[in-house]
Structure formats: C-alpha cells, structure tokens
C-alpha cells in the first residue's frame, strides 16, 4: 500500500514537526499547540509563535493498535496528552514499552522517525516525547 506523503506539505510544516512551537494569542493570552494564525478560543488573528520548553508531564496516554495506513511498521503507537508549561500537546511517546508508561511521568521532547515513504524513500521525522531518565520508576 502507498505511503506517499506530500513533500511540500512536510517541508512547510517542518518547524512544527522539528521544534516545540506553539502560538500565543495577544488578545486573550491563550497558548495553544499546534500553532495557528487564529486563536481557537477568542478568534483573534493577532497571534505569535512561541518556543515551548522541551520538558513536560504526561497527562494521559493510549496504546493505539488500529493505526492508519503508513504507520503499520511502528504499531502499536503510544499517543499521549502532555502538558508543557501549561500548554497541552498531543504527541507520540517513544523509547519506552507500553507497560512502562505511567501517567504523571516526566517526559522530554526528542526528534524521531514518524514514517517512511516506501515509494520515494523519504523518511519523515517529528517530535516525540520520551520518559526523562529515572522518571519511569516514580
């Protein structure tokens, strides 16, 4: 099955995939991820990009078995909600077995392979979160 993914889309989104960027609304002050030009809370189009710290706390996670086409090699995926400095992020949790994941554990951002495009040979990367050393056994 095809795993093709648009090269221009990936290229345009690379800052979101490679760095922990969020948007901050100048009107209502909300910070949100993924970044967007308009504030989802108040509709203001006055927003600015902010860099988030790379450490956060895992709030909730799920182990995803029914992955979409293109992600089968890595299944199951661990997907978590992470709070970073008050901002919630959904991301993959990596470098850990599903049974070792604990809600509340400290996690940090790392760049990891998300998918491979079999047809073009391209490899796509994005930020995932891994447990901070020593945090697993909290």
């Amino acid at each position, binding site marked *: 099955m095809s795993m093709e993914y648009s090269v221009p889309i990936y290229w345009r989104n690379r800052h979101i995939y490679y760095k922990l960027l969020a948007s901050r609304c100048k009107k209502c002050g909300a910070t*949100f991820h993924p970044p967007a030009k308009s504030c989802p809370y108040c509709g203001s189009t006055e927003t600015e990009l902010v860099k988030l710290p790379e450490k956060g706390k895992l709030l909730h996670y799920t182990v*995803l078995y029914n992955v979409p086409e293109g992600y089968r090699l890595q299944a199951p995926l661990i997907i978590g909600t992470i709070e970073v400095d008050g901002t919630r992020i959904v991301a993959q949790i990596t470098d850990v077995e599903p049974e070792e994941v604990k809600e509340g554990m400290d996690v940090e951002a790392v760049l990891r392979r998300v998918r491979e495009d079999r047809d073009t040979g391209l490899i796509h990367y994005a930020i995932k979160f891994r447990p901070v050393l020593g945090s697993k056994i909290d």
Partner: protein
Amino acid sequence: MPEAYIRSFGLIRPGRHYDKSLYDLAWDALNMLDVKVEPDLLIVSNVFSECLSGQADIATRLASELGFSGRPTIRVETGETSGLSALELAYKLVSSGAYEDILVLGVEKLNEYVSQRIYKELSKLYHSDYESFIGVSHAALPALAMKEYMARYGVDRKTMASWPVLMHSNASGNKFAALRFPVNEDAVVSANKVSTPLTLLDTFPLVDGAAAILISSKPNGSYAKITATAHTTGGFAYTHRKDPLIIDSLRQAYEILLASEAEGDRIEYVELTDTFTISAYLILETLGFSAPGEAPLDVKEGKYSPDGELPVNAGGGLKARGHPIGATGVYMAAESAGILSGTLDLNGVSSSNALLVGVSGLGSNSVILKLKEV
C-alpha cells in the same frame, strides 16, 4: 413563511455491501420513498467519494445515475455532520421559500478498500497537518478523552461500557441496524483493543449506507417537520479546545437553538452521534441531560433506554445501527421521522419531538436539528 416538512424517507440497512456501488445504494434508498420524487434541488451528503470511489462531483454523477439529469444538484460536506448540514441547508432553503421540494441524499461507500486504508481516510477528519501526520487515527483522540474522563470522574471501565450495551440492545429491535446482536459489559471490555482503553465495541462498524429524505414545503402526507436548527464550529485540533470533556461548539449550538424557539417544549427523544462510547457521554453531559461524570451511570440505570425518561438512539445509534459517515445524519432524521409519525417501530418509542445532535470529530463542528410531529 413556508415550513419545511419531511415528506418522505427511505433508507437501507448499513453494512458491507461489496456487491453494490455507491450508486446502487443510493438507488435502493431512493426507491423506498413513498412519493414520486421530482426535486427542485438534489443535495448530496458524502465525505469520501473522491478518495474511496475515485469520483469527484459525486452529486452530478448521482443525478445522472438516478434519472435526475437536468435538475440542479450540489454536494455538501462537513465531516461527520455532513448529513445534518445537508438537512439544515434544505430546511433553510425551503423555509425561506427559495425551493419547494429538495431531495437530501446521504450516501457513503467505505468498503472499497481494506480497513487500514479506511482508517487512513477517517483520520482525515482530524487535523491533517499535525494529528494525522503524527499517526493519530480516528480512535486515538477519543481514547485519550476516555482516559481523561475515567480519571476525572472516577468511572471504571465496566461502567463505561453501559453505552454500547444499550445501543446493541436497541439495534436488536431495528431492522435497519447493521449490528443486531446484544453484548454485555464484559464483552465490551474484553473485545479487541483498538486504542486502550477503547475496544472494538466502543467504536462504530465500518459500513456503507444510503438514506434519502424529501424536504417539502407541502404538509400533505408528511412524516414530521423541521422547526429549528443550529450550526457552529469549534477548535479543529484536540488541543485547540479548553476542556476535552466539554464540547464548546455543541454547547453554543444548543444555546442558539433554545434561544431561537418561541415555545421551549420538553425534549422527548434524542438522536446523537455516538461515534465512540465517550462521544455519547460527552454529548449527553454538554447538553445538560446528565450531570458531568454521571452519563454512564444514567445510561446503565435506564434513563436513556426506550422506556426511560428520555429515550436516545432507539435504533442503536452510530455504534450499532452503523455510521456511514456522510449518510449518518440522514439516517438520524429518517429514523426520527419514523418515530414521530409512528410508522417505524424502534423498540416501542413514541414521541412528539426529537432533537438530532451531530458532532464531527470531538467537537470541530456541531449541528442540531429539532423535529416535531405533524
């Protein structure tokens, strides 16, 4: 000002119809209508025809296949609420006098490829540049919301299973339901894991389906009338919403709907988009029918059963009747019109009004329709 009546409806049993094309399914639904259909406008609700059937301009193709060549047609799409959006549009156009007879045709043909491919398509209902890209399928975000719900309100996994148990029970009494077998809580909890703690029995089956409704300004022989609608949008990404357990767009839509009604009669029946078990609970709580954290127990105690205080999804809902994405809203309206007119027996439920509640994703948009008996 004219009113907008459901003059006729037709629907097929959702399922994996490998032997039928999208056009065959629409044909079958259309042929169940009990009137000669000569619409001024055909509105087609469909989400995935370009990607799964390889056909753009599906509305025109359908007009041609169904013998409506010459007549105008448009396709309307708003994700999982597409069918309700199409009906809302028909309501606006008929009640404002722009058209007299509009045929709304909801049709979706998912089963043209293997499930993995369908999951990929379904993930397009979420934020494509971030959520879909990092591998979030259609089930992962509901699973996260479910985890958060269980943690915040201290509800155990078995109690969470109340919804699918009720839906499978309701579907057993609906000849148009895809899954007509009962399940118990243990079966739900121990079913195949899809995205923990969410199992296969917390999700809707991947079905094809088609349903047709003729909206008319003429009351004669009609089954129900649409009296009010509301439609809103919310943050598109899961983390673009303040609280994943409150559906802001739905709360706003319900406030708009209530404010638009002169007489606020008590809601007697509800059809809602229980895409996942958690979706049903969040909708019931956002609308105020259950207090936060109490929907699962309310379900379990029978509040929403066919003989309960407020029957919900008497035909089994998305969970067990099936969720043919773009067609679903039309199914909801068709089943409700059957109840309101007493022409479709769904576990003995009778009612004088119905609230149709649609949420796409976990709240990216919400559409509500109010129906009344005629």
